[in-house]
Structures are given as C-alpha cells and as structure tokens.
C-alpha cells in the first residue's frame, strides 16, 4: 500500500464569495481565491445587463 502524504506548506489564502442575482431570480455564486486583483472592482457581469451583484464577502 502506498501511503500518501501532503508535503505542501501552509498557504495563507483567502476565499471570497461573490453572489450574483440572475435575471430569472436564481443566484450564482463565484468563489474566488488568492489575493484581490487590482482591477477586481471593475469586473462586471457583462453578458446580461440585468444581473446584479448582491453580495460580496470573505468566507
């Protein structure tokens, strides 16, 4: 039997959750990891104009 073992070092990595309300009433949640990108605030749900970001938080 092969015994596997994690050798990775701890990574201080934040997980963020961005919740989008879709036009048909459903929700879509993006889970994002790692440092916040410089242009993060500029990102938008560009494909359908009727979607709305309703919540953004670290989890």
């Amino acid at each position, binding site marked *: 039997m*092969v015994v596997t073992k*994690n050798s990775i070092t701890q990574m201080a990595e934040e997980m963020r959750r961005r919740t989008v309300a879709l036009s048909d009433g459903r929700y*879509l949640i*993006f*889970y*994002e990891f790692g440092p916040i990108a410089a242009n993060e605030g500029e990102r938008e749900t*560009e*494909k359908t104009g009727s*979607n709305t970001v309703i919540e953004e938080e670290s989890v």
Partner: protein
Amino acid sequence: MSELRWNPLLGEWVATATQRQDRTFLPPEDYCPLCPSKDGGFPTEVPESSYDIAVFENRFPSLRENPETPTVKGSDLYPVRPSRGICEVVLYSPNHNSTLAHETVEQIYKLVRVWTDRFRELASLEFIKYVFIFENKGEAIGVTLHHPHGQIYAYPFVPPRIDAELNQAAGYYEKNQRCLVCDIQDEEINDGRRVISENESFIAVIPFFARWPYETHLYSRRHFQALTDMSEVEQRDLASMLKTILVAYDKLFSLSFPYMMVMHQRPCDGGSYDTYHFHIEFYPPLRAAGRLKYLAGSETGAGMFINDTLPEEKARELRELVEPVNWLSGAADD
C-alpha cells in the same frame, strides 16, 4: 410542476419534477451551459468570461425555495407537500474537458472549502433538514452534461438512506459505547486487504460489505460529523485522498471512470448526532471494462445487492494503481 408525495409502503417521500424532462441533454461542447460565456457565443449559466469555482441554483430543480402549490390534493393515506428545498450545481472548473480526477489537488482543496461553505450556509436555513453533496459522473450514470460539476440537494427532511445509517450508528453506540465507523476503520486497518490508501486524516477502503465491485469509502480518522468540523489539514488531506482515488479509478480501465460520489454528514435539523461519523462513498457502475453492474430485481425489488466480485480482490487492483499525489500538478504522478 413538482411536489412531494408520500410513499406509505416504504415510509418515504418521492419528488415529482416534470420540468426536468426538458433539461439540456448532452449538448455539443460549443453549447455547454456550464462553460463561461464567450463573446459572441450563446449565453451560458455563467455570464462571465471565466471563473474558478462557481455555484448556482439549478435551472431544473427537484426542490426549490419557493415551490408551486402541489398539483394534486393529498389524503391521510397519500400526504402531499410542496417540494421545498434547494438544488444547487457546483462547477468544479471552467475547463469543459476536465474532470475532478484531472484537477490539481490544490483545486480539489478549493472545492472542499466551497463544499464546506455551502454546507454551512444551507444547513443554517430553517426549512432545510439535510444537505446532500454528490456528483454523478459519466453517461453510464445518466449525466446529461459532461462539464465537470457536482450537485447539492438541500432536503426538507432527512432522506431514508441517511436515516438508516443514523439509526445503525445510534444502535451500535447504545450497545457498545463506540462509534460504528471508527470500529469499521479499525477492522479494515487490522485486516488490511481492503485498504486502498491512507493518509494522516483519511483512509480509503472497499469495505467488507461493499455492494458495488469498486465501491470505495473514505473515512475520516478523527470522529466528527460534518465538513464544518474539519481542520485545514483535514481539508487538505481530504483533497489529497480524493485525488488519489479518482486517479486510480481512471487508470483501472484506462478510461474516465464513471461513478456516483456521495457525502454522508449529520443532518441539520437541530438534533444531536454525536454517534454519526463523516464519510464519502463512491459507487462506480462498472464491474469490468465495458460491463455495467445493473440494479436488477434483487437490488431494486428486494433491496439486497449481489456483488459479483470480492472486495479483497478489487481493493488490491485499485491499491496497485495508487501513486503519491503531487499537490500542484494535474496528474497523480507528473
């Protein structure tokens, strides 16, 4: 139209969900609804050009937070209730042709964190009594979309299979003052023949009582009840163990191995379930290359499974395919 109808013969709920007949069926890659949307392409479920891991409410749910009124009137014999609950789809990767087995351990670790967050959030809802995380993979299982994804059903009741396990665990504890799954682990480790792989936090076995030829269980070494009880080290070790088993599965017949993967955790109905023990079960439908194990008369009609193989032999096959995982690479050994 959907509703929950009571089956008095078995004492369990059945969901009708007629809208699911219209769900997307094996679309070509260019029309995959789970891929990121492309400029000039058709709008998918994800209106952005990329994502890491995404979760959305199923467009064709069996359960929904605000269900319609049932189409039929119930009776004392046949109770009916709205199909209230939540069905989510979890997208593992933006890469259409990937599978969980092909993802890096790092990506699987992210998924474990997402599963944990979804469990925490859904379990906090008053009308949710059980959060069931699972994946159906492969056309042999009946998947209609190949894009790598899993699902979460948040039920308004504790489903019967879980209820049976809870009762077994509670009864075993009452009799022995010990956890049933902890004892199963000890038995499997002491015997050794059915162990596939171990790490510091998890052990993978084809259990003594396996119903499917390659049925694999992942047991946490520490006694706890849910994803939210896990330490970061345990989350990483779970990711590593999932990668180990999935890669071994794919090597078995040199194909992308079909399976059902189900996560068994405590209910979230406010009860105490200290005797229960978190674990994951895989039910692959193949009994040999190109040969399916069908759930026929005995399995479906009587509930007694007939396993055409010996768990000791199947575990040895898988054990010989296990290789150490590389945390950051996609494959197990590259």
